[in-house]
């Protein structure tokens, strides 16, 4: 196997290569993270004090900038006082991979530190509910409107100009309004996810609908299909596979609004967990929580992709999606 074959333009790699390269796409970032964390001479801009020496303000376990530490060491040598000791360390906001793995494990197994705090999985469940409610509400209205706009020019002209305008308004800007109208609990959060998803959704779905081969519609008409049967028997089945892919994409979009949404009103869910842990400088927990969001997102998408392959057996290229 020649190396140049790996970079053939427009050619598919064979199955083994594809798997290897896909695994690499996760291994590489983890490798970089590990290098930064475990190799003392790479980065490590801080020093963790292991022995304070005669420096008054040093404390055991304290993180201090390397320049300051070096200066104190020089001063101590010059004044022939006891020399402080320490080892290179990274800033507190970059925990090492193993610390995050431990945090990931303990987050699910250890009791919350305060009685009124929620377990991580409870916070997560709150977040997932907010996301899915927002997304489903948006889809229930957005998908039909999008299909209508894509099928009938009348609805396209009726909906799309306003939606084009509205989609430029950042969803979080409606936070205060949402709280004023819907209270401080889950409702305004769902509303933000809704606003963040809905307007894009209508436009994406209408575009997908318009891409349906017009010859299929004409063929159906010469076979006697009219109005509603055209819509339900040709347009919708004709776009359903693309629609499904759009929805998968948009669900990812909805996740990006989650953190902002959960900061509105009373902070809740995974966001509450993250801000709380960040406040106590438990960045290993923060990383753990962020990684969990990624894992949930990716897993949902993989499950949906597999489901799509099962449902749309006539699609010869679902595998590529």
């Amino acid at each position: 196997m020649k190396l140049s074959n790996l970079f053939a333009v427009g050619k598919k790699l064979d199955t083994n290569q594809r798997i290897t390269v896909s695994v690499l796409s996760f291994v590489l970032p983890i490798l970089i993270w590990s290098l930064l964390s475990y190799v003392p001479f790479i980065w490590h801009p801080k020093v963790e004090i292991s022995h304070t020496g005669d420096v008054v303000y040093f404390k055991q376990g304290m993180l201090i900038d390397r320049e300051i530490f070096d200066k104190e060491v020089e001063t101590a040598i010059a004044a022939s006082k006891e020399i402080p000791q320490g080892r290179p360390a990274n800033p507190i906001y970059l925990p090492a991979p193993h610390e995050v793995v431990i945090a990931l494990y303990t987050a699910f197994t250890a009791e919350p530190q305060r009685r009124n705090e929620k377990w991580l999985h409870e916070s997560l469940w709150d977040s997932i509910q907010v996301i899915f409610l927002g997304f489903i509400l948006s889809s229930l209205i957005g998908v039909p409107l999008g299909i209508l706009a894509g099928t009938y020019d009348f609805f396209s002209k009726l909906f799309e100009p306003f939606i084009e305008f509205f989609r430029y308004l950042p969803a979080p800007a409606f936070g205060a309004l949402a709280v004023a109208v819907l209270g401080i609990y889950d409702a305004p959060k769902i509303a933000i996810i809704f606003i963040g998803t809905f307007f894009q959704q209508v436009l994406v779905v209408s575009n997908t609908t318009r891409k349906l081969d017009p010859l299929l519609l004409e063929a159906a008409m010469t076979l006697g299909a009219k109005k509603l049967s055209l819509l339900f028997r040709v347009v919708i089945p004709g776009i359903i596979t693309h629609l499904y892919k759009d929805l998968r994409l948009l669900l990812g979009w909805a996740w990006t609004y989650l953190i902002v949404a959960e900061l509105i009103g009373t902070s809740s869910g995974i966001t509450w967990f993250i801000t709380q842990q960040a406040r106590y400088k438990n960045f290993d927990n923060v990383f753990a929580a962020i990684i969990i969001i990624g894992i949930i997102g990716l897993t949902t998408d993989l499950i949906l992709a597999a489901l799509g392959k099962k449902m749309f057996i006539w699609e010869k290229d679902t595998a590529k999606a």
Partner: protein
Amino acid sequence: MSHIELPSYLSQSGDVKDRFDRMKKRPVTLQVKNLNKEFNSAQGKVTALKDISFETYKREFVCVIGPSGCGKSTLIRILAGLETPTSGQVLLDGNQVDGPSQERGMVFQGYTLFPWLTIKRNVMFGLEMAGHSRAGSEEQAYQWIDLVGLSKFADAYPHQLSGGMKQRVAIARALANQPRILLMDEPFGALDAQTRAKMQSYIHEIWKNIDVTILFITHDLDEAIYLADRILVLKAHPGEVNEVIEVPVPQPRSAEDLLSPEFLATKKRLEELIHPPEDDVAISEDHLNMVRMVRVDDDVESVF
């Protein structure tokens, strides 16, 4: 062809003449009266079709042929009801055509099968639209699929079929509605030569056995002569009827007829109509400016 003395394309043997006389006594299926179609384009008004009039008789096979830009596709789309004429009339069995309907079946060049339906469900589509029950349409669909020889593929999806097979399904799907006329817009244009020849004899076979009039658009002269009772020759800019040719080749036809004197005479006439002599002048005027671009010491001195 000029070496062989050809009969006139107008001279018909007794049998052929007799057949045309009988055909013209049949009822008229499709009647096109003074059809005009204009488009508004950036360059102003373009006349695509000008004063087209013709009729087809029951169970006749008519081919429409013409140079590119003669509006043959526009014509068939108007007949299908997919476009409206600027003026003029299209009558099917005496009734004015208004919009698409299952009594005018259409087969497109791009196969236009519904990719989400199996072959069987594709053929059932029109029947279900016409209000047949699921079971009833299924039974009929099987017959039509059998007719085009694809019973083994009834439960396959279109993407699993070759181009020729897809087009057979499209024909079965259109015929399942038992249309009065079957409109075919260059249906074999995307197929390779061998499949194409096979499809031509298929469609002839189907036409012989089913009560349907066929209007078939093609740009292939051989195909038109091989298939048609009469050929409607259009000319371009604007699209007008140039001549209606009664093909003197006796029916039923086979591949050997492609070399018969009647066939060659008709082909000669079609070539005159579609590539008139003045075109040759145009070609010689923009004759390729060829310079010998082979190395002096090249091994192959001349390709002849």
